[in-house]
């Protein structure tokens, strides 16, 4: 989930609820799972995100989250690791299906 949050922030600064909406737009719903707020808190504590307060569209000031330099490095490394894992799993599944199929 951390990687997904970093990916959303990679598209631009965003605040909590807007991040939830962007995750939903990408097919990731948190219903039935934990909230993103503790995750954002941990990312902030670990220095992976920068924060600033700014007025939202017609609403009260919000806390906006954006990638820090450290967060960007973590995001790039995470993407590489995820793709390597995905490729390995895909290869394993393809081999398994090849053994099953006549």
């Amino acid at each position: 989930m951390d990687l997904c949050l970093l990916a959303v922030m990679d598209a631009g600064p965003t605040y909590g609820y807007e991040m939830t909406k962007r995750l939903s737009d990408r097919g990731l719903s948190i219903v039935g799972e934990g909230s993103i707020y503790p995750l954002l808190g941990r990312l902030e504590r670990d220095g992976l995100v920068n924060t600033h307060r700014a007025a939202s569209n017609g609403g009260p000031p919000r806390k906006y989250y954006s990638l820090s330099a450290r967060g960007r490095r973590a995001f790039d490394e995470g993407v590489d690791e995820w793709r390597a894992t995905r490729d390995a799993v895909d290869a394993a599944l393809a081999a398994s299906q090849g053994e099953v199929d006549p």
Partner: protein
Amino acid sequence: MNDFVHECEEEWRRLGVPTAAANEMAADLRADLAEAAAEGVSPEHVLGNGVFDPRSFAADWATARGLVAAQAPQRRLPRLLVPIGVAAAGVLAVLVGLALVIHPHASLAAVRSPRARIQVRPPFEVSPHVLSPGSINLPLGVVLIGLGLAGLVVALVLSKHWQLVRTRGV
């Protein structure tokens, strides 16, 4: 949802979260929930399972931000001690109850030191049939066994309940 935010604020206050940080989190939470409500989005969609347990949600959020790192474990310790204490008392009650049921005529006199020389004479005559140890020990033992078993059931229910709450936590 005001109740939810209010419960979070209470929890942050209890955990000693700095006021500025608590106010900031509460304001963000209020704004997000208000925006979601205006769009017809349920609080569960914003908060996930946290919507069912505001105290745990608030504690997890503040802990993740490093605002209550030293205090978080203290909250769980008493929760573990309660079912353990109840279970221990239940086991003790069952053991004592069994002893009384199996040996209803045993009394403290059986374990009295043979060197004891002091004898206390009751100020009135007591019928041996009325205060015979066996006459009261048997029902007392049954009651203790019942209470002990009830205590064990309560301890089991408590431990299962808190295990469920912890599992559903964010």
